[in-house]
């Protein structure tokens, strides 16, 4: 049994009266590629945002590598409004901002690419090295951190060579073709030295050939960087190819969990995607 990396427990995210994620429980173990799938509007990205600290979940708990990182329970106005389960299970409130989580070793990419627009490819990746700095503003200004700066640059170069972006390193990031921008976003996330990589629809907007390349690329970085990967995806080919396990959610609720073959034949999943006819 490999070590648990991410443990999500009874996670509920409610906006006003809408329960976007309802009592989601999931586990990601070391070295696994786990996919989170579901029809449009099922709450996948919301779950992602709650795990990465963008949203404060309404109820539930998240642990990362055995350490509790997020815990919350309904408070204030939400106490009356709360429509999820396990309202009394959690007593503590623990909130972490996305940058703290990234420092712990959780890096993510975005559904719609968010690169640093004005910067070159090289600077984009170099900027992500900022969080592991030991210099402060004075030593950095007076260039007393020359060694560290050189190390950051060297590591960035190495990383860009590994992901095959070195030849475009001086181009402005947003000038790259779409597939390469995706790749760069993943490379930038890798620059933060993550243990767990969260990919939000990495193949969105890609043609079949690009998708295939991406599949290879994800396998490649997992081996190279000893990563554990959690991804959200719509391309079923990619998902079935790549994942060790799959969680399916619909209307915020988990409806199935298992290896790709099980999911493909699961009636509930088929119903969720294709719809159930009214007369049955």
């Amino acid at each position, binding site marked *: 049994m490999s070590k648990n990396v991410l443990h999500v427990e009874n996670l509920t995210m409610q906006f006003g009266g809408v329960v976007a994620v309802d009592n989601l429980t999931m586990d990601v173990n070391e070295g696994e590629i786990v996919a989170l799938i579901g029809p449009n509007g099922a709450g996948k990205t919301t779950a992602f945002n709650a795990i*990465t600290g*963008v949203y404060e979940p309404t109820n539930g708990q998240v642990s990362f590598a055995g350490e509790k990182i997020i815990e919350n329970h309904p408070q204030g106005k939400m106490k009356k409004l709360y429509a999820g389960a396990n309202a009394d299970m959690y007593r503590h409130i623990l909130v972490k*901002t*996305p*940058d*703290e989580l*990234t*420092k712990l070793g959780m*890096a*993510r990419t*975005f559904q719609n690419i*968010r*690169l*640093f*627009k*004005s*910067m070159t490819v090289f*600077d984009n990746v*170099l*900027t*992500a*090295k*900022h*969080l592991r*700095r030991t*210099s402060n*503003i004075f030593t*950095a*200004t*007076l*260039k007393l*951190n020359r060694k560290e*700066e050189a190390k*950051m640059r060297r590591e960035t170069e190495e990383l860009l060579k590994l992901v095959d972006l070195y030849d475009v390193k001086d181009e402005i990031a947003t000038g790259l073709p779409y597939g390469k921008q995706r790749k760069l976003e993943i490379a*930038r*996330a890798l*620059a*933060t030295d993550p243990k767990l990589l969260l990919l939000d629809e990495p193949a969105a907007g890609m043609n079949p050939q690009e998708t295939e390349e991406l599949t290879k690329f994800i396998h490649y970085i997992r081996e190279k960087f000893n990563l554990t990967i959690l991804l959200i995806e719509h391309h079923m080919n990619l998902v079935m190819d790549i994942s060790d396990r799959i969680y399916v959610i619909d209307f915020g609720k988990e409806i199935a969990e298992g290896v790709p073959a099980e999911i493909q034949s699961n009636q509930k999943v088929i119903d969720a995607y294709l719809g159930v006819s009214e007369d049955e």
Partner: protein
Amino acid sequence: MWNQNKRTICNLLLVAALILTLVLIELLAPSTSMWFSVLRKVCTFALAAVSMNLLNGFTGLFSLGQAGFMLLGAYTYAILTIPVDMRSNVFRNYGDSLIRFQMPLVPALLLAGLIAAFFAFLIGLPVLRLKSDYLAIATLGFAEIVRGLVQLQNFGPVTNGPDPINMFTAPKNILVYAAISGISILIIVLIINSTYGRAFKAIRDDEIAAEAMGINLAHHKRLSFIISSFFCGIAGAMMAMCNTSVSSVSFTSAMTYQILLVVVIGGIGSISGSIIAAFIFYASSEWWLKFLDLETYTDAGAKIPLLGPGFRMVVFSILIMIIVLFFRQGIMGTREISVYDGILRIKNLFMKKSVKGGVKDE
């Protein structure tokens, strides 16, 4: 790498040439020359514009508190450098000054920056949670509050209430101004080129992505705000030196807009642009376009139409409109000046001309 070195050498030569020009002006220009007062002002506002650019152009925080921080710097500097025996004279309406010592120029300048930075830290705590326009309004409000507060009678023994402060140390030599401004701008450039500068730019480009990459937003925004205000305070002290008298009425929001204008004309996100724009703006408004304000008569005694008090501002506004309409990026955009690249470009231009109708691949 070699190209990078060439670039650095060329830019150092440019700086050396600038310093040489300043020394020559200081030594050779007649003492009545407009160069002196204009260059003093240019140095002051170049620093103010660059410090505003650090915040607005490089960190993406739209703040309009510059006048407030400059006021704090100017007052701190002025109060601390009045000679002891002059104090009772300056503060005659309030008996005597509470502060009974005189500081040398450099420590007073530093303290001017530190006081501004300290206030930036305090108001940054609540205000930096706000974004874009809201931040602008809050900082603008802060500047106006500070201006109102120093005029209070209760603070009289320290700030001289609404009366102006004068008699403090005010060097006349333009090289002093150039040195203060130059060193400060150099430090800002070093910050922007450091790993912190990259973090600032990341926040400007995409806050959410920056946070996801492990950049602590609150910390870095506060840092940028404090650094910018520190140099604003120093610019304020320089303004006090320029005018040889400090009065809270001169630190209006109109001054902030003027600095903002310089930043926009120069290019938001360009240090050299801010400096060039500061020169063009203040040289033309204080000197080259000054004749527009004077009623002028031809030799025959006929009055030249339109010239008269206030006309300068009309022409100036039109020029600014032209800049905003046709040079939306400002003079420099987000680029920095580079002599080497300029030479290359001119070279390319000639090369292209010599090969008539040749291939145009670059």
